[in-house]
């Protein structure tokens, strides 16, 4: 690879400005087309029958009555999908989650599906499908599920990662461990030790757009899929594999996406829609209801975490330890592992040990949710850190500054850090006016830090220069929050032309090489790297064409500020050729001018944030109000600062919802009690104050412009920041998220009782 991704410290013209996004007008006029906004001639309506039981063996499914109903064109069960029982275990799980094969593993698990001429007929058909279940004991709580006596969800699972292979199956699918040093010795050196247990409840990404797709399977074995997804190339691979077809025969077009936050990184109903279309021989549109989204897409883990941190009188942390149990739904996952890696990542620690346990439960399969697993671990750790600071008598910010990781620190998950932003975010918070603002009665202030890795990964872009000098940029990372604007800025910057002359689109899977998903905060990081590379390739061609036009050697042509410039005394009279002037002549100088790039974007810089918030607590009711909120985060380089702020604010708002009110509530029967926006309470406009942001720019050495991912880290600190604020306001340490009014009031009452 000739491309040099190293940070160059250049001065920017376009990058860092705030133009209007290219997809903006369509989105404010209602013309933008999302998953459910696409239709095809002859299209059928697909609907899925879901298990009402948390855990049940499927004895028999009789679809005959449904098949006979007029207007029903296809009915499928797992029997219509490939049997991967002896195949790839991971893909078996993906398919089993799309359509249960032997057991229904949670309330909402798909067991059959129909395609019919309209929604009414499809609904009626579902009622005519007879499923005979044998009910099995279920378990939905992460701690209960980890016990020896818990009902077994999968008796073929034996805990991985233990020194000795266990003899009995378990709901604990994996143990993972990270750390260095000797925590036992470290705690021996501590003057103060905080040890606490914490719980967090399961939350959902809560994207406003339900999953939606239109599948069109043709009798020649090819298929088209229109779908809202964070990764159409990944959906293509999974769907093709699950349906037993070649990937190139399946063309996936990503619609505009109405929010994903990790929830649209997995296939849910798309393989089912394709299977229905294949069987019916007609296009099938399948749109989940909100109820289905909550019951049967992928929420995040519920957790139970024990933390122990020790420090000397001078405020130096001597040892830190955590045990983290994360629910992963009924299929094995790696969620606790990530929690264990991120838990202490903000700190410089000589002795640290984290152990994670993945726990199966009869709940929907856990999916990624914005910096998955990190917020819960941060909640536990940052709560304990605050308490420890208080015990020592140190200011919580100073205590964190003293122990913050820096360049050269060995991270708690292993590698040594390069240049990082935790120290600078803490210093910025220390001097932020928010920290000095007065607090009213029943108000408390809290702050907390957060860490996220950020990803790079496989990326491919095409940059085409039209004969009028305008540029089309085709990228393969789905735009979830304005990345087409950012990538257009990057193309404009590198080519040296105006932003207005670049138009970025997200290409479908048949028009561009493979791209990893828009996840791990990688969209702008990776695609900007690939865009820079593509632009540099195009510039190479532009220089060649200019050389041809001037009839000089290409080595004498350089590219400066959007122009070819002839260098050397003998070319002194040649002037400059603009990109447009070269493009106009391209038909005669060798044809179209384009730059292509395919690369693995490595070196995504890790990201840190520190948040401050003020909360008011009503001591008589436990009601909370967020008074003020400030986000400080390192962006590396903010390509489009407005959208960077948007990521900071959005992540903070989601974290606030998680901290205060959002939770999956299961009944004793194992059924989800609140599968709707009425009782799954995401923050509304009047719940929040303005969310102030401060962007720090500590360049990522592994990106030409210094860019780091920015999307996820902002959801990591809020749980802890709010818990610290509530604890300060109410005078009692909160250890259970969400801190709903009944939990806060109960804690206040218990404290009153105790202090009597």
């Amino acid at each position: 690879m000739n491309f040099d991704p190293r940070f160059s410290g250049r001065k920017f013209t376009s990058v860092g400005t705030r133009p209007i996004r290219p997809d903006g007008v369509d989105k404010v006029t209602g013309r933008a087309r999302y998953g459910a906004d696409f239709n095809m001639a002859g299209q059928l309506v697909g609907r899925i029958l879901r298990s009402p039981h948390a855990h049940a063996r499927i004895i028999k499914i009789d679809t005959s009555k449904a098949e006979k109903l007029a207007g029903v064109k296809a009915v499928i069960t797992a029997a219509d999908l490939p049997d991967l029982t002896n195949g790839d275990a991971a893909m078996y799980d993906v398919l089993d989650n799309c359509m249960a094969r032997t057991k229904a593993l949670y309330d909402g698990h798909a067991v059959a599906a129909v395609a019919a001429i309209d929604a009414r007929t499809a609904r009626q058909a579902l009622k005519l499908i007879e499923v005979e279940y044998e009910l099995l004991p279920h378990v939905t709580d992460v701690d209960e599920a980890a016990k020896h006596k818990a009902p077994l969800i999968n008796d073929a699972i034996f805990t991985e990662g233990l020194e000795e292979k266990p003899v009995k199956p378990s709901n604990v699918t994996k143990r993972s461990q990270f750390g260095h040093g000797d925590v036992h010795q470290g705690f021996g050196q501590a003057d103060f030790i905080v040890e606490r247990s914490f719980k967090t409840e399961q939350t959902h990404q809560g994207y406003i757009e339900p999953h939606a797709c239109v599948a069109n399977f043709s009798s020649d074995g090819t298929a088209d899929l229109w779908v809202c997804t964070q990764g159409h190339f990944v959906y293509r691979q999974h769907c093709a594999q699950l349906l037993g077809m070649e990937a190139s025969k399946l063309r996936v077009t990503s619609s505009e996406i109405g929010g994903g936050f990790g929830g649209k990184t997995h296939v849910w109903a798309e393989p089912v829609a394709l299977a229905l279309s294949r069987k019916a021989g007609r296009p099938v549109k399948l749109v989940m209801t909100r109820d289905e989204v909550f019951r049967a897409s992928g929420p995040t883990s519920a957790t139970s975490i024990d933390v122990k941190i020790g420090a000397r009188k001078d405020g130096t942390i001597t040892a830190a330890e955590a045990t983290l149990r994360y629910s992963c739904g009924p299929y094995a996952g790696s969620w606790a592992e990530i929690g264990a890696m991120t838990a202490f990542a903000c700190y410089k620690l000589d002795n640290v040990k984290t152990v994670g346990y993945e726990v199966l439960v009869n709940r929907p399969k856990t999916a990624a949710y914005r910096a998955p697993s990190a917020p819960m671990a941060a909640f536990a750790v940052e709560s304990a850190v605050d308490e420890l600071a208080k015990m020592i008598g140190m200011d919580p910010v100073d205590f964190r500054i003293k122990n913050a990781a820096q360049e050269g620190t060995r991270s708690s998950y292993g590698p040594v850090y390069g240049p990082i932003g935790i120290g600078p975010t803490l210093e910025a918070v220390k001097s932020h006016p928010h920290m000095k603002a007065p607090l009213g009665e029943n108000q408390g202030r809290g702050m907390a830090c957060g860490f996220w890795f950020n990803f790079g990964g496989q990326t491919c872009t095409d940059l085409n220069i039209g004969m009028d000098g305008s540029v089309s940029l085709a990228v393969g990372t789905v735009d979830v929050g304005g990345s087409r604007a950012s990538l257009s800025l990057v193309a404009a910057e590198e080519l040296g032309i105006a932003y207005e002359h670049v138009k970025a689109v997200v290409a479908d899977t048949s028009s561009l090489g493979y791209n990893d998903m828009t996840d791990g905060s990688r969209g702008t990081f990776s695609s900007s790297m690939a865009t820079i590379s593509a632009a540099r390739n195009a510039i190479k061609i532009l220089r060649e064409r200019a050389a041809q036009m001037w009839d000089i050697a290409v080595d004498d042509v350089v590219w400066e500020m959007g122009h070819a410039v002839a260098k050397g005394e003998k070319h002194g009279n040649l002037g400059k050729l603009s990109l447009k002037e070269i493009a106009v002549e391209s038909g005669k100088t060798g044809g179209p001018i384009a730059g292509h790039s395919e690369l693995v974007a490595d070196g995504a810089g890790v990201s840190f944030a520190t948040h401050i918030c003020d909360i008011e607590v009503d001591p008589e009711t436990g009601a909370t109000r967020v008074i003020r909120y400030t986000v400080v985060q390192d962006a590396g380089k903010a390509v489009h600062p407005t959208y960077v702020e948007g990521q900071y604010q959005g992540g903070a708002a989601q974290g606030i919802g998680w901290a205060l009110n959002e939770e999956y509530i299961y009944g004793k029967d194992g059924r989800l009690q609140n599968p709707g926006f009425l009782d799954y309470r995401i923050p509304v406009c009047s719940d929040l104050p303005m969310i102030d942001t401060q962007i720090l720019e500590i360049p990522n050495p592994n990106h030409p412009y210094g860019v780091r991912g920015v999307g996820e880290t902002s959801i990591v600190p809020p749980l802890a920041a709010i818990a610290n604020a509530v604890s300060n306001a109410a005078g009692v340490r909160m250890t259970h998220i969400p801190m709903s009014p009944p939990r806060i009031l109960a804690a206040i009452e218990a404290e009153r009782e105790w202090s009597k």
Partner: protein
Amino acid sequence: MRYIRPLSMEDAVGQLAGSSGTAAILAGGSDLLVRMKGGFIEPDLIVDIKAIDGLSEITETGDGFSIGAAVPCAVLGESAALKKAWPGVVEAAKLIGSKQVQGRCTITGNLCNASPAADSVPALVAAGARASIVGPAGRRTIPVQGVPTGPGKTSLAKGEIIEAILLDKRAPRSGDAYLRFIPRTEMDIAVVSAGVNLTLDEHGVVKSARVALGAVAATVLLVEEAAQVLIGSRLDEATLERLAKVCAGACRPIDDKRGTVEFRRKVAGVLAKRAATTAYARAGGK
């Protein structure tokens, strides 16, 4: 399934009475359409009552107010006279749902949906509101608390329609207030709620009182004992504490996704206290 829009009460009652299968009355639809969407009800007949003469109006008479069954809650807030006389009822009605729902939902629908957590009902019960009911057997008027008989159940007979909610003319030195507890600032169903309606004598002493609690039992509770605590008082601190205690004791709540028994008990008392204080101030008490 049929959708009809009768122009007269007689026609509506006749259609309902003569219908076979499930019939549903549609005014604002903010409960009915949600239940239809969820598959909880599949009506064979939908009777849209919004075109019936007079049902979309608030009338002020010598006896008080008559609020037509199809009047959206947003309109209650736009009636200055009603707001002045019964601010507690209006604030309760204005708490139902979002702006979007406000333009559609009605207090009659809120009453007939028979949810123990309905926002307008405790305020209406505290206000001593009555429901004017028209049916095949003619017209009858009953106190609103006689309408819901349990969650989702009403005392209305087949063919009966509530045509209006009636509120009395206000006695001097009267005030009412309604408060509910929700975890967010908007868009939630009441976890617990309290409506208080007071009339004072010339000396600022409570002469009559009604206290109603929502979401703490199968139907809204009219707590007679709480009213007795208030009567004869000037709402001093001790009275308010007693009120809170009595209200907490009167609750028969459940644990559910919205709150716990302990929480509802405790907060019912707190809200009753706060609502009483507001009602007292509105009545001119100091």
